[in-house]
């Protein structure tokens, strides 16, 4: 039995830019901004960093291939820099690489940085294109967009659990309304306006049954973390945050090509959660996980993820949503920073942006007192990349 990553490494510094349509910032500018905050927070200098991992997804829209864009932007002094790309888990994969680099003993201090510059495409939504899933898929799969792919999960969820479109959409509206409430209170969020359930329900349809406010924003942003050995962490700061679990699960094709998957959950999400709880020694995630930042690319994704991560029983998330369980003042706050819903989803940055919120909350350093969750012990982040029928999910757990 493998030992796992639990309590072997710790985060000693993090940085995160404001997310948004940053017309005047390049990907390189965003990297420098996140890096600067991260260095200051960690109290280290550039020369202390032994190795770096760099996450970016749509490299063709911004920085180009490889990792040189980061070594050049930050003037990293001839150290190893490795680029990671794994759909929406790209930033978490950079973080995982840095953690494993330190845990292996190869390095003492490592940097993970993710960036995405989405707003140079000239159109809304994520960049599309037939090559996203490979040459063969481009010839046979429908011209999917992200909203359409996740709308199909909403259709399926409503059908499996007997919700009328009205009931289902009302449930999802509460998810988005909650995140907008949180985002409105976060200076780094892109969308900072509270939205009512009725506004959400009356918004134009993007992909049936999902409307405009069921979809997350599209933004530019960057976030970064500096990691060191857990036994060295207190040399840098009094309140480092330990890594408890890092897990990734990918689809083997069963969901898309075999007929057992019910389409109303994300199998990889469930599996990655189970593996992460095992690694972190968590028996009852509903009780033990204090808070979470999950991949709410769409409202339905968040709802289903609550069940996949065993925060809510299967088919019962509606009750928890209605009871306010995941609200900022609820028993298990989810998306306390506003989530992808309000930060948007610069893919290569999102996973680290989520960790930034958990890290700050665990340190009791959420900027405004009204945002601070009371005495959190464990924070979970979750990314899902690809489509419900074919994807990757990463789960990270950090804590005191």
């Amino acid at each position, binding site marked *: 039995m493998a030992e796992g990553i639990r309590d072997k490494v710790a985060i000693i510094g993090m940085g995160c830019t404001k997310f948004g349509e940053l017309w005047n910032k390049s990907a390189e500018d965003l990297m420098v901004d996140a890096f600067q905050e991260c260095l200051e927070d960690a109290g280290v200098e550039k020369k202390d960093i032994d190795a770096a991992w760099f996450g970016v997804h749509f490299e063709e829209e911004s920085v180009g291939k490889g990792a040189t864009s980061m070594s050049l932007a930050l003037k990293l002094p001839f150290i190893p820099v490795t680029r990671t790309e794994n759909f929406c888990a790209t930033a978490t994969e950079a973080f995982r690489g840095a953690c494993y680099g330190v845990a292996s003993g190869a390095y003492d201090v490592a940097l993970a940085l993710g960036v995405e510059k989405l707003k140079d*495409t*000239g*159109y*809304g*939504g994520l*960049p*599309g*294109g*037939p090559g996203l899933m490979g*040459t*063969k898929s*481009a*010839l*046979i*799969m*429908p*011209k*999917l*967009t992200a*909203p*359409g*792919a996740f*709308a*199909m*999960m909403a*259709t*399926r969820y409503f*059908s499996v659990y007997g919700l009328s479109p009205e009931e289902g959409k009302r449930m999802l509206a509460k998810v988005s309304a909650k995140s907008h409430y949180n985002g409105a209170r976060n200076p780094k969020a892109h969308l900072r306006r509270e939205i009512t359930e009725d506004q959400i329900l009356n918004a*134009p*349809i*993007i*992909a*049936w*049954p*999902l409307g405009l406010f069921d979809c997350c924003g599209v933004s530019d942003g960057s976030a970064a973390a500096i990691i060191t050995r857990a036994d060295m962490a207190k040399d840098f700061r009094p309140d480092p945050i330990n890594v408890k679990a890092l897990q990734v699960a990918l689809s*083997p*094709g*069963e969901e*898309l*090509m*075999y*007929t057992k998957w019910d*389409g109303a959950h994300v199998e990889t999400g469930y599996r990655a959660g189970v593996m992460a709880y095992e690694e972190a020694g968590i028996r009852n995630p509903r009780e033990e996980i204090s808070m979470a930042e999950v991949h709410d690319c769409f409202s339905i994704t968040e709802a289903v993820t609550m069940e996949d991560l065993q925060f809510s029983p299967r088919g019962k998330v509606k009750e928890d949503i209605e009871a306010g369980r995941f609200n900022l003042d609820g028993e298990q706050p989810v998306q306390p920073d506003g989530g992808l819903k309000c930060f948007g989803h610069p893919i290569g940055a999102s996973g680290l942006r989520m960790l930034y919120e958990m890290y700050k909350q665990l340190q009791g350093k959420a900027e405004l007192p009204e945002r601070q969750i009371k005495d959190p012990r464990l924070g979970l982040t979750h990314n899902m990349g690809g489509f419900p*029928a074919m994807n990757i999910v990463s789960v990270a757990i950090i804590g005191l």
Partner: protein
Amino acid sequence: MVGIASYGAYIPRYRMNHNTIFSAVGFLGTFPPPGENAIASHDEDALSMAVAAGVDCLGSIERQTIGGLYLATTSQPYMVRQNSALVATALDLQPGIRTADFTGSTKSGTGALLAALDAARGATSGGVLVCASDCRLSKPGSPQEYLYGDGAAAILVGVDDLIATYEGSYSVSYDFPDRWRASGEKFEHAWEDRFIRDSGYGQFVAEAISGLLKRYNMSIDEFSKIVYPGLYAREHGTIAKRLGADPSQLQDTLLNTVGDTGAASPLMMLVAALEESRPGDRIMVAGFGNGSDALFFRVTDRIDGFAGRRAVRQHLSAKKELSSYEKYLAFRNLAPMDLGMRGEIGVRTPMSALFRDRKAVLALCGSRCRECGTPQYPYQRVCVNPDCGAIDRMEEYRFSDRHGVVFTYTGDHLAASVDPPSIYGLVDFDGGGRFWFDFADCDLDSVRVGMPVEMTFRRRYVDESSGVHGYSWKAMPLRA
């Protein structure tokens, strides 16, 4: 003995009333005859409709028994890259067959049929499938726009199990310059209608039919059905009168319900005639275009047990009105439509990959695991069944003629489409297998989880920068 072993047809779902055209472009001065035209959807063309007619015609006939495919059309997407070979691949015919394109004239429909009958007579194996299909582009406001309709027919020519035997033919050929389209041109040119009617249509059809009667020493009243296209409604009757035929012998021209389907027209009418024929009936078929071919058939006893084809009759009754002329222009790419920058993202077709994966892309073939029996699309080397996982134990498995049900779906307004929302979803096939597909010929309001579907071969995109017309299969509501 050679003749017809099976028949099939295809008429697209949309119909556009002539008044719809007139209210949009009637100011140009052409006054329409009453009626409606069948309109291919934005994802259909001559090849997709040829495949649809071929699927109808083949029914459950084993694809390995087919020895050739002849395609007749004047609206083929490719000048170079054999269109019939693409259709044959989509129909999952074996490679060891003869394929040929018959084009350049609306007479090519009967020309292909004659060639197939001649081929069958000398053939050592298998029938020849003749697909005739046309989806002709007409200039907005032109008389052709009222005349032309889209449709396809398929006739399986063979030597065994015939529903009609081929009895003889007579052809005339003229370099009749009624319509022409030079290489590289988008639209046809036409000479004056009165010239086409009086010097061509009115002459050649009668000449071919009279020639046939004379050659075989027959009289016109021996035929229960006389089939020839109806370019001009009144002249259609006049030709019959000149031949001494009774109006009751004339097969309906489909002119007011489908339009003139060019190369497909005489074959679609032949299919319609076969649908209502009885053993012993004699059917005369003549085409028109740069002359005329006349053929005659005698219906056998087997016609009584012949069923299971949608043919013309069922297609005629399944229709939906296209009331927007502007949408029709968008379907035909006749007006620049804004699909947003997302719609401008290029599709580049890697031809070597297309050829390698042609069975998956064009024939909708996947695999079935010999160990556990799980069908899977596309072809997998490692079995997707988590309890199996066998490697390289697959046999080929075709999904194109399998039905399924909608597992889930959406209507996507973000995806670039000339007919938004893009409707797509996952399909669970009867007998196993699941994949995602675009949906065709349906309205979002009518789609439901669990709704039965069948598969249809469609044009996915046209990449004008590289001249590629891309095709694959979509799901559509199971037709009654």
